[in-house]
């Protein structure tokens, strides 16, 4: 255990750091959950799109010489590039496979994780890449005697904004309403004369846009390299499962549980901190095997 006492300030600090991690996890897993809920596709390549988002962010920001403007431009452009890639993927291939069984779709998207990994290697090479946050987001400020990174604060602001955007999209727009209806009963939506195929394409692109956005936001804090797809996809799937399959608010709850148990575990029992979020997953599934919120499946 931790030697010496844990101060309240340290605990609060850890909660905030955990919540900033939650932001990234939420953005990525909500996209995964959206696709899973509406299209019924367990998109394993979601992590690859997140990785591509980070690489494109690096390239765009570098093009503008890693300035503040370059970073903002990258935050806007990179998710759009990922969305474009996913549109090609959906219209070109995925839309022909919707009536196949889940295992086929799983294998299909898995094949794309390998293809994307090699494409990334061909385009960007195997060197490590690092992107600097703009000057106004670098460094940290003092929070009760402990440093709190400015970038983490930025993430804490971005998280609720994305959540708000998602809420507006699913509840206030026509496409959101159709998507929710299609998630419950696909044939019925088809029967009343709505082109489900186009709705599916839109939802898939939005889901993948979120993966790209997650990758773009995480880029300045990470080593942009091959392999970042594996770590995120496992965590994102766990979050989606404990939150309730296909439920984006479940993804928010799951991400918060994952991020917070991780950060607090590190403070209380640093030697075995790795197991904390996974223990939380096990406990949630023991109590609620179908996830915390209503699963759409």
């Amino acid at each position, binding site marked *: 255990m*931790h*030697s*010496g006492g*844990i*101060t309240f*300030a*340290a605990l609060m*600090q*850890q909660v905030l*750091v*955990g919540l*900033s*991690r939650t932001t*990234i996890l939420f953005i990525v897993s909500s996209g995964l959950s959206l696709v899973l809920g509406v299209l019924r596709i367990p998109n394993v390549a979601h992590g690859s799109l997140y990785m591509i988002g980070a690489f494109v962010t690096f390239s765009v920001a570098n093009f503008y010489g890693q300035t503040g403007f370059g970073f903002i431009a990258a935050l806007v452009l990179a998710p759009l590039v990922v969305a474009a890639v996913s549109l090609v993927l959906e219209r070109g291939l995925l839309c022909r496979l919707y009536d196949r069984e889940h295992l086929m779709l799983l294998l299909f998207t898995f094949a794309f994780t390998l293809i994307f*990994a090699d494409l990334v*290697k061909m385009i960007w090479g*195997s*060197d*490590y*890449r*690092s992107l*600097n946050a703009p000057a106004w987001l*670098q*460094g*940290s400020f003092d929070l009760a005697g*402990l*440093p*709190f*990174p*400015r*970038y*983490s604060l930025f993430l804490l602001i971005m998280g609720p904004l994305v959540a708000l955007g998602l809420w507006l999209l699913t509840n206030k727009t026509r496409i959101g309403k159709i998507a929710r209806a299609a998630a419950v009963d696909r044939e019925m939506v088809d029967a009343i004369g709505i082109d489900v195929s186009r709705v599916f394409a839109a939802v898939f692109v939005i889901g993948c846009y979120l993966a790209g956005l997650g990758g773009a936001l*995480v880029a*300045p*804090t*990470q*080593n942009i*390299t*091959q*392999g*970042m797809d*594996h*770590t*995120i996809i496992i965590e994102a799937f766990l979050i989606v499962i404990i939150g309730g399959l296909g439920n984006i608010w479940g993804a928010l709850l799951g991400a918060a549980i994952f991020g917070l148990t*991780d*950060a607090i575990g*590190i*403070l209380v029992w*640093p*030697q*075995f*901190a*790795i197991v904390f979020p996974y223990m939380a997953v096990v406990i949630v599934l023991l109590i609620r095997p179908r996830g915390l919120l209503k699963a759409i499946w």
Partner: protein
Amino acid sequence: MKRLFGLACFCLSVLVLLPVAAPVAAKTITVGIVDCYSGPPSTYTNDVRDAFKLEIDRINAGGGVLGHKIEFVTRDSKFKVDIGLSAAKELIYRKNVDIMMGTINSALALAISDLCRKEKVPFLVTFAKSAKITGAKGHDYVFSITENTALAGKAAAVGLAKKPYLKYWIAGDDYEYGHAIADAVWNNLRKLKPQVTLLGQSWWKVGEPDFTPYITAILSAKPDAVIVATGGRDCVPFLKAAKATGFNKRVPFYMHTATELSTLKPLGLNAPEGVIGTSNYFFYYPESPENQAFVKRFEAAYKRKPAVGAIYGLLAARFIAGAYRKAGKVKPQAFIKAMEAMTVDSPIGKVTMRACDHQAMLPMFMGTTKKVSGYNFLIADDIVTIAGKDVMPGCDEIARQRKK
């Protein structure tokens, strides 16, 4: 008639040319390299292969070794033991390679080492950091031309013992490399300076995406210094989080590969200053003409600066060529005999292969990260050279480990 004549001419010329062409292809020494060329580890392994090729080309251009041309074939292990081991078998049984070389994965290096012992093929380990390779699991056919966790740990302990820190924290990758290097630093440090205490430890998974919660938790425990036992791709994000939280300004920390080019170059001028690290090689140190010439050759061929892997690749080529020349014949037993206690010249000075454990005696350079004008990334400064013989376990200690 004309066609018949043409055909006859063709057949004749084939008959004449065949015996001439054959001997050229015959006399070669084949080196089989199994290493991870995909995913994050390729950042390190590409330099080994490229520097090896550069040196081999030079040796071949100078007439080869004992009239033999040196050739090499590579196989990608994808960082997996089973894939790497079957590739090694293919190279040994089907390609009949004379020498095996590789890998960055310690578990795979030990597996290939075992295979090479059975098949009596000399094996040169070029990057794997497990001390077991030439320690407890060492044998006649395996050679290491890279530092290992025991050597780096001892070197770090020697350096850290000279500093005034007493209360330590250990944090690192929760797998073989992390624990091995942390144990090596800590056990040696405790021996050199018994009054040090350990406040606590944090262990994270390999590929940890966010180090901020680990750093803030360590800071709240207020240690004098931290031993960071992380390697490979986790170094970059750790240094980023260290910079973002001002960790390096609050608590000094040691991280073995912190000063490596592969780690510092991507971070540019935004890497944290004052981080202590150890390495076998820098392209800017030692400032000898031999090193400068090597850097120039490497840059001309590959348009980039050589990182630490390059010195291992170059040493491998020089040891192989040198040992065959010294042996006077291309036979595994003679090669092993010749390798033992052999010394080769290199950009980091003379390097000797220790006879008792087949571990190359490499110098270790300990430095701290610093911004220096003329570079658009941080480099190691205040470099202290720790000689190989000062950090290597004694031959009696190796014998004891192997007996167990």
